[in-house]
Structures are given as structure tokens and as C-alpha cells.
């Protein structure tokens, strides 16, 4: 596919940035489609196939991260995320969204075009659904099959609540999670301050993991009532 024929779809809510980026891309010979939000983007995707999508993280309605996950699951074009917050980068390129590259605002046109060219050169992504199998220390965890397997290929029996909690840690490895955050992510609500059930599940999970994994202390307690998965998580 020749570069000149490549079409780039930009999804960005700020009209001026949208116009300036579109102009910069057109000047370089790209075909450009522009959308203000997810609905407009979907309308464009019905009638045309872009070779690359530039997606702003913060959009009205469905946000960029959610759009990115959705596109990643069904489409093969590469996705370049635009973020206005430097602390969003971790989430943008994290395990969940599937973005191929990102740019932090403000960026210059040359920077943008260089990234776009580099991504187009790599071509369409080999379609691989986001990996949901991870290696955690000596354990292997399959989030879809809800299965934990130890180094001797023996399954580790976890209750549903324990697995949900473990999955919550795996999706946010090496990061301190407060009781409130864990409650919000595993049960959709912030637990009562006197509710110790999360601590109890953590301690049961920890006991089971310590028994079947040689890395002692997979889950560590941090002062001020937080927990943290100390192992590195890698997709397998």
C-alpha cells in the first residue's frame, strides 16, 4: 500500500486541534477523516476503512480508552493515542487498552507525522486479541478460564471471590491498591470502613498463593491499609 493513499482517521473533540492535525496530515499527502466523538467515528467506520486511527484519550461520551479497547478487539488498523496528561501514559499503553503508540500533548506536527509514518510502515497489526493469560511469579493465570496453575502445572483452587481479587491485582501489578479501590473494582462499591471482608479474602488468598508458589510474599501489605502484588506480570 503506498503511503500517499493511506487514510488516517482522527478522533479529537477540540475542533481547532482536529483541523490543524488534519491540515498537517493532508500537507503530507495523507487522506484524512475527522470525527468529534465515538458516534461520529462509528459512522465513518461504516463507510470507510482507515489505515490508522489517531484517538484522543479524553472525549465526551465514550472515552478514548474504551474506544481503543473496542477497536482493538475488532479491527486491525494501528491506534495512536493522544493524551493530555502525562500520568495517563501507563494506562494508555498498559495491558488493557491495546494502543500501539501514544503522543503526549502538546506535540508538534513533525513529531506526529513521524509517528504516523513509523506506524504505517509496520503495517496492519497481526490480529491478536488482548492476551488474558499472564505469568505471575512462578504461577500462570488465565483470566478468561479463571484458572491459576503453579510451576508443577497443578491447578491452584481459588474461590470466586479470591480469584476476582487476584485478577484485580494482576491487572494492576506492583501498584498499591487501597481497600476502597479493591472494593470498587471487585464489587463495584466502596466498602464500609469497618468491613474487614476484603482483608480476610486477601489473607486467605495470600495463604493459598504462598503454599503453591515459591515466591513467598506475592502480595505485600503496605502501611495505611493497602495491598500490592510484588511480582512482575507478563502476558504469555
Amino acid at each position, binding site marked *: 500500500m503506498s503511503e500517499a493513499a493511506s487514510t488516517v482517521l482522527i478522533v479529537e473533540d477540540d475542533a*481547532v486541534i482536529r483541523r490543524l492535525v488534519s491540515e498537517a496530515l493532508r500537507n503530507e499527502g495523507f487522506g484524512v477523516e475527522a470525527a468529534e466523538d465515538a458516534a461520529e467515528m462509528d459512522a465513518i467506520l461504516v463507510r470507510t476503512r482507515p489505515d490508522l486511527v489517531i484517538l484522543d484519550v479524553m472525549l465526551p461520551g465514550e472515552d478514548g480508552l474504551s474506544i481503543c479497547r473496542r477497536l482493538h478487539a475488532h479491527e486491525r488498523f494501528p491506534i495512536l493515542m493522544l493524551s493530555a496528561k502525562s500520568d495517563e501514559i501507563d494506562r494508555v499503553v498498559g495491558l488493557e487498552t491495546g494502543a500501539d503508540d501514544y503522543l503526549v500533548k502538546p506535540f508538534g506536527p513533525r513529531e506526529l507525522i513521524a509517528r504516523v509514518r513509523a506506524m504505517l510502515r509496520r503495517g496492519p497489526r497481526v490480529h491478536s486479541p488482548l492476551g488474558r493469560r499472564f505469568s505471575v511469579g512462578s504461577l500462570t493465570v488465565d483470566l478468561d478460564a479463571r484458572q491459576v496453575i503453579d510451576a508443577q502445572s497443578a491447578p491452584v483452587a481459588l474461590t470466586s471471590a479470591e480469584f476476582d481479587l487476584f485478577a484485580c491485582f494482576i491487572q494492576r501489578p506492583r*501498584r498499591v491498591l487501597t481497600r476502597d479501590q479493591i472494593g470498587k473494582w471487585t464489587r463495584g462499591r466502596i466498602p464500609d470502613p469497618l468491613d474487614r471482608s476484603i482483608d480476610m479474602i486477601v489473607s486467605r488468598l495470600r495463604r493459598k498463593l504462598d503454599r503453591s508458589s515459591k515466591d513467598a510474599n506475592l502480595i505485600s501489605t503496605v502501611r495505611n491499609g493497602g495491598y500490592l502484588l510484588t511480582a512482575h506480570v507478563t502476558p504469555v
Partner: protein
Amino acid sequence: MRLSSAVRVCLIIVLSVTIVWIGTVALFYLSSASAIRNNRPLPAQVAALVSLLEQASATQRPLILRAVTSQSMAARLEPGNHIGVTPKLQRVPRLTARAVDQYLSVLGGRPNSVSIRREGNARGGLGFTFAAPADLEIRVLLSTNETLVVDALSYPVANFFGVPVGFVAGLTGAVLGLIALFALQREIAFNRLQVRISHLVRGRIAMIGGISHDVRTFLTRLRLRVDRIPDEQERDRAVADIADMIRLLDDALLASRAGSGELNEELIDFAQIVSAEVDDRRAVGKPVDLASTAPLNSTILGDRLALRRVIANLIDNALFYGKAAHLSIEADSEFVTLHVDDEGPGIPPDQREQILEPFVRLEDSRNRRTGGAGLGLAVARSLVEAHGGKISITDAPLSKGARLTVQLPLFVAR
């Protein structure tokens, strides 16, 4: 938050127990007061005793006296007239005397007196007889010219400074309850204050975050337009200005998050982010080097962005004021330490503390050539301190320049 809710629960328990206690004491007093009133037919008893003694023979009298003597009553006969005076100001003797008079009037009336016994449960003087049943002494002159002395003993009540223990307990309970109520109310007020402050702080962070986002949008437009400036030098300056503005915004946002404990906490290999920052600058030809060290454990718990900003500020400061940055990392069992040495004129000891304050620059030796509000080191310090670390300034050992040292506590798994 957890402690205060525990305190609140304790207070509520104390308060409710106290209320139950007061209620029980009150109930006891109400019921026993009516029981005393009903079960003490003292005047009728006395009248009957008078009538019986007057009719009985001399041999029967001691038996009668013995028969009526019990825990709550003692009767004896004294020869001659020993009638006392019923005190006018004491309510219980007066009422009892009136009742005794009524009953005796059936027998044609007898001279009598009712007084509170001096010994025993006698505390009538203060008028506390409603609370403390007093022992009464009833004297009736018989027709045989003998005086019948009846000691009506109230049930023994342990007392405390002249009032029954139950009363003291109730009073103490009430006072404690009031104190508990007051403390509870203050605790609630304090909690509300905490909630308000945290709302305020979050609101401020959200506002700075919102401003930062909007300013970034404007700066992105500006940055995209700047490329149309034909003069290359002007264009580069404009790009640098935009970068400085973003940096200032990020600093403000980070510092306000650090100041209110809103930083992320994740496990970070400190040596790795130091070498990444060094590599970034070496790639554009800046005189930065990192003394190679043996692999060391530099895992700390902290905010990646904040720590990168600390390292970046120290390196850029050293480059700007001290021409070059020489970095080294060491670690012991508790701390990881980063030294950043420069080749500048150094910082005089008396200005070292001052230079870590916001908006302070050493103007005499370092003139203001480009942007920078003097926030870099202040932001670095507030971020390092938010991570439980220390930042200090000394002389560089190898050059005349300054050495900035950052010490951060290592993560210990528990």
C-alpha cells in the same frame, strides 16, 4: 479515619449503656419509693401496738415487744414520760406524726412525738430524706405512764457522702453520659471538618488538573501553529517556551498532589528510571553521565512520574547552572541514594537551605537567562519528602561544584 470510627463506636456504646443504667436506676427508685410508701403501715402498726400493750398483762408485754421487733422495727418501753418534740421543718417526721395522731385518735389520743434518729440512717438535716430513707423514732406516752419507743428502721442503704450509692451512680452516669455525648458531638464535628478539608483539597487538585488539561489543549493548538513560523530560530524559541509552560504546569500539579498525599504508589526500580532519564539527555548530546555501579536493589514504592520529575529537575538544574551532571547511585539495606554533582561554582553553605524553597534563585552568581521560576528544586524537595526521603546539598567531592543528594527509603516486603 478507622481510628475515629472506632472511637465513635465506643462512645455510642458508652452512651447507650449509660442511658440504660440511668433508666434502670430511675425505675428502681420510682418502684421502690412507691413500695416504701405502701409497705410501711407504720402509724397503724404503732397504734395497734399501743392498744395491745395497754391491754396486755405485765408478763405479756415483753413478749409483745419481742414479737414486733424485726429488722425494720425495734420497740421498747421506758418508764415515765419521755415524749420528745416533733421537728416542724422535717417533712417525713411531720407527716408520720400526723398519721400516728390519726390512728391514735381512735384510742382517744395519746401524746406522741416523731423524730429522726440521731444514729443510724439519719441524715434528715439536709432535707435529703426523700432520697435516703431515714430511721424514725416514734414515742408515744401510754395510759400506763410508760413511754413506748418504736425505732422504725429503714432498710439499710450503703451511702456515699450522705446520699445513697444508687443516686451517686445515677448522677455519675448522667455526667459521664453528657461528657460522652459532648465528645461524640465533637468527634462528629471533627469528622465533618476532615471530610470538608479533603473535599477542598480534592477540589483544588481537580481544579489544577482541569486547568492543566485546558491549558494543554490551548498549547497543543499553539504548538501545531508554531511550525508555520518561517524563521527557524524564532520557531525553536517558541517551542522551548511552550515546553517550559507545560513543565511549570506539571510541576504545580505534581507538587499539589504530593502536598495532599495523592501520589500513586507502585514498585519502581529507581536505578532504572535514573538511567532512562540520563539516556534521554545523552541522546541529545548533553554532558550527563551515570557512574556504572554493580547491580543493586533499588526497588522503592513511589510515583513514577514524580520520581522522574525529581531526577529530571536535578539533572537539568546541574546542566543549567553547573555545565555538566555526574550521577551516581548507591544503596544500603534501607536507603537508595542518588548523587548529582555539577561543575559550577557551587552553592555557599548559608544558602543551601534557602535554595530548596520555592521561587528562590541565587541571582548574583546565576543570572536569569531563560525561563524558570525557581520552582525546580522546591518541587523536587516536596516530591522527595512525600516519598519519605531527604534531599540535601553539599560540595561535590571531585569538582568545585555542588552535590545534590536524594535519599529514598527502599521497599521492604512484609
